[in-house]
């Protein structure tokens, strides 16, 4: 199977666009260059293992993106900057849901069904809400603040977090056979 290098490089560039802006502006171009160097090296030496290499690079970079956004929203530099936090939460959530979307597209391509936009919107929105609720709590703990100051607020936040996690896990378990391509699943 031949994988078009140009497409892979374009996709990698698009993936790099998901890094936080500061990181992207400082190191994005270097990362792209290094990825191109690695691709060239692979092509020079061997065609074997190309898919594995590309998959590893994409997964490793996606983990890096999640980590950088995680650091951005937990380190408090953007305290109060809800817009940046929500954007980071949206990107982290998108990266979480992306493998499921790929599974859906690949495994159900022959079933002639519409893409379940509502399901994926929910799968994406729930982690966004989870992160947005969790981050202020993590920040308070890191800053050494007493988070039990308002026990009712804390209790409510924990209940909502548990509910969101339960709903997301339940949805995932329920829909996993569909993502894996099982026929007649709902």
């Amino acid at each position, binding site marked *: 199977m031949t994988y078009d290098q140009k497409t892979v490089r374009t996709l990698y560039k698009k993936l790099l666009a998901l890094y936080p802006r500061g*990181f992207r502006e*400082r*190191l994005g*171009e*270097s*990362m792209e*260059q*290094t*990825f191109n*160097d*690695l691709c060239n090296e692979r092509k020079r030496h061997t065609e074997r293992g190309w898919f594995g290499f590309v998959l*590893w*690079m994409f997964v*490793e*970079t*996606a*983990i*890096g*993106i999640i*980590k*950088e956004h995680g650091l951005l929203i937990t380190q408090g530099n953007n305290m109060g900057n809800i817009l940046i936090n929500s954007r980071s939460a949206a990107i982290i959530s998108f990266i979480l849901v992306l493998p499921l979307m790929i599974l859906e597209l690949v495994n159900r391509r022959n079933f002639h069904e519409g893409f379940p936009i509502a399901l994926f919107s929910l799968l994406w929105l729930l982690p966004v809400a989870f992160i947005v609720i969790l981050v202020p709590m993590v920040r308070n703990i890191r800053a050494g603040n007493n988070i039990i100051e308002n026990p009712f607020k804390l209790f409510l936040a924990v209940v909502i977090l548990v509910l969101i996690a339960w709903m997301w896990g339940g949805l995932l378990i329920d829909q996993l056979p569909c993502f894996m391509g099982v026929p007649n699943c709902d």
Partner: protein
Amino acid sequence: MATTNPNPPLTPAVFHILLALSSGERHGYGIMKQVEVDSQGKVNMGTGTLYGSLKRMLDAGLVKESDKRVDPEMDDERRIYYQITGVGTKALAAELERYKRIVTLAQERKLLPKTFAYDL
């Protein structure tokens, strides 16, 4: 009273990057290749780990960007080279000292295979 360690232990990625830069300035791909050589192919660093670590190292002053262009074969005007700083050299020395103490301890407790123990 707790005191702050001026040279806290380094992560494996940061350690390998500093080790790679200790022998000269390198760009990202050059660092990856040097890490591969230094670790005899056992450490394979991806771009996410490399640049994530580099960013934190730049912020901490362990490395800095260099103006030099030392790889004419691969050179590109935009290619950024990195060099180890004085702080980075000290952090690397402190980490190697920690490793040395662990190896000495392992020798004392006869935990090392004989072939290694005689070499040290």
